[in-house]
């Protein structure tokens, strides 16, 4: 761990000014990922701005009937919040599928969005990694790539975003409220995380001098038809190989609107609105779900150790849709 300086901000304005004033500054809240990375020299911020005292922990209804999650609400408080459990159970389930109870007690909602990839090479400073050290190369492409991307990757980086929560937020089309020196703005979740392209060092479109203040959920929570399905190598405390967040708006057995987001397959939660649209006005059935699953993985490319994810994603999408639509598995040719 490299030496660093530390200040504690009292309000959003001073936090933003601290972050923009100090070169190489990072914001720290729960610290569940940042501190680990600092200890092994993967991240080397010269200055930390502690924002844990900011009044951003509340979860409250918006004027439009949605819900505003304070940036500093913990993952645990969010998952077990009455409004979230009742109106956005998809989000609650996704959060509880991630990490451990101890980590969720400490980790914040904004921090969850900003966690770094779990690529083995990103974590080992004795290996090449374009995300950690731009220009050094990607060790994962020809290395061990079991937890890596099958969609949206580039020749520079095949890392995945590890969050479960973000996958649910993508399906819920959340909006991220941020504040910077120029004031406030809102970023749709779809535009928040980036694909690696030739700048894999940038995980998100959040500017270096901006901080997240809240995550806004629209009134549409898909509380009747939802699923968060997570496949992983053990039943807890493992990152998703493939996860699927599904929210369906249904009338009888007809789908009005479908939202599907995949985790563990790309550098960001993966949506495919065109494929989702295939379900609009369709009956909920395995026959109708299969083409959507196929469309989702169209163009996917795997590597030595993760090609199985393509088929796993396909099957997981079908399974998640069946569960969300309450379609009886066994009466549909299964």
């Amino acid at each position: 761990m490299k030496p660093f300086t530390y200040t504690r901000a009292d309000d959003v304005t001073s936090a933003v000014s601290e972050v923009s004033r100090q070169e190489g500054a990072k914001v720290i809240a729960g610290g569940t990922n940042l501190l680990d990375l600092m200890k092994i020299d993967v991240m080397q911020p010269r200055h930390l701005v502690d924002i844990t005292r900011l009044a951003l922990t509340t979860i409250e209804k918006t004027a439009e009937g949605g819900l505003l999650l304070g940036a500093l609400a913990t993952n645990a408080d969010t998952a077990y919040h009455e409004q979230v459990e009742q109106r956005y159970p998809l989000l609650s389930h996704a959060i509880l599928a991630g990490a451990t109870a101890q980590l969720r007690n400490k980790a914040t909602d904004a921090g969850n969005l900003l966690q770094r990839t779990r690529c083995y090479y990103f974590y080992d400073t004795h290996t090449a990694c374009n995300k950690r050290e731009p220009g050094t190369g990607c060790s994962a492409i020809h290395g061990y790539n079991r937890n890596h991307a099958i969609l949206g990757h580039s020749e520079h980086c095949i890392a995945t975003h590890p969050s479960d929560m973000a996958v649910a937020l993508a399906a819920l089309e959340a909006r991220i409220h941020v504040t910077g020196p120029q004031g406030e703005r809102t970023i749709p979740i779809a535009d928040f995380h980036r694909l690696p392209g030739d700048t894999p060092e940038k995980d998100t479109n959040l500017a270096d001098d901006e901080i997240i203040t809240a995550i806004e959920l629209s009134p549409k929570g898909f509380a009747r038809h939802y699923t968060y399905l997570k496949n992983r190598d053990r039943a807890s405390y493992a990152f998703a190989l493939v996860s699927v967040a599904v929210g369906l708006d249904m009338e009888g057995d007809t789908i009005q609107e479908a939202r599907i987001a995949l985790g563990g397959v790309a550098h960001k939660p993966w949506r495919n609105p065109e494929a989702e649209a295939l379900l609009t006005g369709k009956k909920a059935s395995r026959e109708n779900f299969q083409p959507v699953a196929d469309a989702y993985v169209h163009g996917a490319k795997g590597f030595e150790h993760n090609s199985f994810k393509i088929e796993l994603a396909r099957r997981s999408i079908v399974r998640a849709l069946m569960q969300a639509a309450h379609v009886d598995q066994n009466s549909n040719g299964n």
Partner: protein
Amino acid sequence: MATNQIGKPQNRVDGRDKVTGQARYAAEFNVKDLAYGVVVSSAIAKGRIKEMDTSEALRVEGVLEVFTSENRPKLASYDTSFQDEDAPPGSPFRPLFNRDVLFNMQPIALVVAETYELARYAASLVKVEYETEEYATDFEKERPNAYVPEEYKSTTPPDPWGKPETALKEAEHKVAEEYSHPSQHHNPMEMHATTAVWEGDGRITVYDKIQGVLNSQEYIMGVFGLAKEDVRVLSPFVGGAFGSGLRPQYQLFMAVMATLELKRSVRVALTRPQMFSFGHRPKTVQQLSLGAAADGTLEAVVHHVFAETSRFEDYSEDVIIWPGVLYKCDNVKVSHKLVGLDVYTPLDMRAPGGTTGIYALECAIDELSYKVGMDPVEFRLKNYSVRDQNEDKPFSSKELRECYRQGAELFGWKDRKPQPRSMREGHNLIGWGVANGAWEATQKPSGAKAVLTKEGKLTVSSATADIGTGTYTIMSQIAAECMGLPIEAVEFKLGDSSLPQSPLEGGSWTASTVGSAVKLVCEKLGEKLLELAQESDDSPFKEAGIEEVEFTDGQMRLKENSSVAIPLTQLLRDNKKDNIQVEAESKPSDEQENYSPYSHSAVFVEVKVDEDLGTIKVTRVVTAVAGGRILNPKTARSQILGGVVWGIGMALEEESVMDHQYGRFINHDLAEYHVPVNADVHDVEVIFVDEEDSIVNPLGVKGLGEIGIVSVAPAIANAVYHATGKRVRDLPITLDKVM
């Protein structure tokens, strides 16, 4: 022996200390002026250090020294000085010996500073330039170069018996398959650490994470040329080791070197990634060819083993003894070859060779049972063995039939449908699998000492270890029972090189070995107490032989007339003794030579496999163990549970992934090296079947450290086959292999 301590589910006598933080581990001994060392690890797998620039690190205020191969003190020069009690044949790795790099993450420097944080920071400033050389870390690429070592660390493979090739050719049913498992690391919760305390005048006290303090002491004496009286090693608590603490690891070398050089106490604790920089269970590939007659008689076993080792030591473990132990078979041939790689030498890991060999054999046997068309339990019983064919000796005891019977009954095995993919529940395929296993029940020589005070307090001691298994507790129970004292009056001391000698804690032999020494020393104490009583002429014990007295309720009394009794405290006071001390050395009996002592087990497993997604859940495990006399059903059960949990990990999760671009284990933390979590472990039932064994050792115990794990992975693999119809022969069985 009326206190009935043996066989009681006694709580751990050190339990309170552990849960309240009073039990201190190697890195928790704080002394005045303690300095902290952080190890710099190599970034390459093989080559030479061209240049190491430590100047920037040394400029950090608070840094005391940076030790490298250039400025290290003079060390012993012979291999023998570095060879510890568990060293395989070869030339042991010597830290900071020269500029050569022999494996990735090799320790190449030690930065010592006033605080841990400063040392860690300064370590990141050490700049190293390497000349790299070609290396080989790809097992499959090197397998054609596999060789027979000049000397085996493990049992030398027995000569073939019968006519295995012919029998195989003529067999009605055959299986010929290859099974493999990857390298795996021990990963105990407590990382390896040493606190070396400078006592002045060249004397040191060392707190080390080790499974036998005498091994560390000998190593320090050999490497640094210290006299025995100048180095005392202590290891009162060990936070798990599973074999990783059988050999002194390099943090011991580093801490002692720095302490002797700086004349100041130094602590060195390894990081979790550095826990992947030394011994591990070796990647092993096994070719098994089995043949059976139409009636299910096992006609032939041919078992060829290829296992990883380093370039500098020939590590081998008992992979090939199992065909001769588990089944009766008249035609057997085995071989064991080593595959040299540029890695650190592998190291015994819980049931070394047993988990490996039994995994492959029990999967192959299962495959054969399907070919023959017999129930897997029936097939195993049909080929039941009562003799160890490797040694051509009868087993000292073997209640495995009872394990099958009780295990099958509790599990409900009779309701199993024989066909694969014939049991399901929604989208889950259900599979039931079985495997049996064995582990050696060895007794080694061991010393012990007993001190009884006039206040009635009994202290028994031996230099053994408690790696979390319950040694403190069971030894206290044995001593309390022998002397007829309440367990609260007994203290057992271990983990101190000044105590009577004892072997490394490993091989499941501690209960039998140290337990026998404790029993013996207490018997001698009893004799001495009787002699003491007989010193006065009017003693009612005057004519009594030792077999005529008993120790119970804190008294010595005549068996025939319990009114003739004297409290032990009074006996000492009457004779003006503050205390009585005795030492004893126990050895295995000659009779044991004529028998082959093993513990046995049968494991029944239910898995549920998601037909579409491939996820595997081990929903039920019943394990029935024949482990001789059970000293403490509570700690015994915990041992077996731990073995089952680890078996789940071995079957489904564990893999140290070698990246050949770097020749480096790459998933070197507990987020990515998966061991089972609570959510992976469901119903586990442990049965101990009654087993009397008067040969194995005076206590009749067999040891339980390893029998719990050996047959879990194959039982799971066999259950996965029964569920899915897919044979996965390379561990771990991850979802992609079955979906």
